[in-house]
């Protein structure tokens, strides 16, 4: 597989820097009582939640964090696909010894 690393590095260098949504911006209560239990497949019941500890804006922040994380994951997946689809090319000369 032949990959033009110089071109790859040049592309990375020229790419625009993107800021990610900071994880600390999300409420601790939302992370510990809603997000993490759901990830662990635990049942989250509204009757057990303290709605005075968070509001709809806190949920929006968590949504932004997840959207950010998913967008990065999709881009890495696309990059991985590019590498996987790169056509194999034989080496012109001996690589070792």
């Amino acid at each position, binding site marked *: 597989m032949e990959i033009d690393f110089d071109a790859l590095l040049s592309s990375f260098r020229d790419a625009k820097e993107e800021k990610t949504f900071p994880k600390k911006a999300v409420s601790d209560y939302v992370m510990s009582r809603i997000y993490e239990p759901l990830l662990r497949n635990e049942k989250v019941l509204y*009757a057990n939640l303290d709605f005075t500890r968070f509001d709809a804006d806190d*949920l929006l922040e*968590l949504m932004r964090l997840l959207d950010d*994380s998913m967008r990065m994951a999709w881009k890495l997946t696309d990059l991985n696909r590019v590498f996987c689809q790169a056509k194999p090319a034989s080496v012109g000369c001996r690589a070792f010894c």
Partner: protein
Amino acid sequence: MTMEEVREILPSISYACLCHKYGKLEKFIEAGNDAPTNDYFDCFYSALWIAGDKVSSHYNEDWCVASYYFSYQAMMDYYRLCRVYGKRRRIPLKENPFMKKAETFVNEMMDIGYGYYAFRLQTKVNHRWASGVVIYIDENGFNAEFEMVEAIFAIGDWYARAELYLWSVLDREGAFQSPALPAHKNEEEQHEQ
């Protein structure tokens, strides 16, 4: 559950937050929404049907337009009090400042800004639930369901507070005092006569 699946069900929790904000979380749970779900429209309709004291709907299949009517007891009382206020000052409804205030608030709340909807404010009091807000939604393009429910809750809450305020204004003016009764004559005065 994956990150994507969690992301899908978070909007349903927003509806629970909204219901809690306006004191209707128990009703929301009783309607079958006791936990987060990815059925967004189930949450939307559950919240919609508890947003008013009286809620009714109609669907026009030819135009794919759904219409909802919301009314509140406080709204009915408010408009009756507006008429008392106007009658005492001999001002028509169009110039009644309390009528204008209510109309301004409803217009501001219903300015959701996403299009594909229309609304109308009714201010009559000739029968129960005569006052209310009618909302028409074009299902082909409307996608501000949460904002709409939020507006309906806010409108109901506003009328509840405004009705108390207007009642206190009229009460201070003596609008609800019964006319003075003649003084009670004691037995001696009655006997002399």
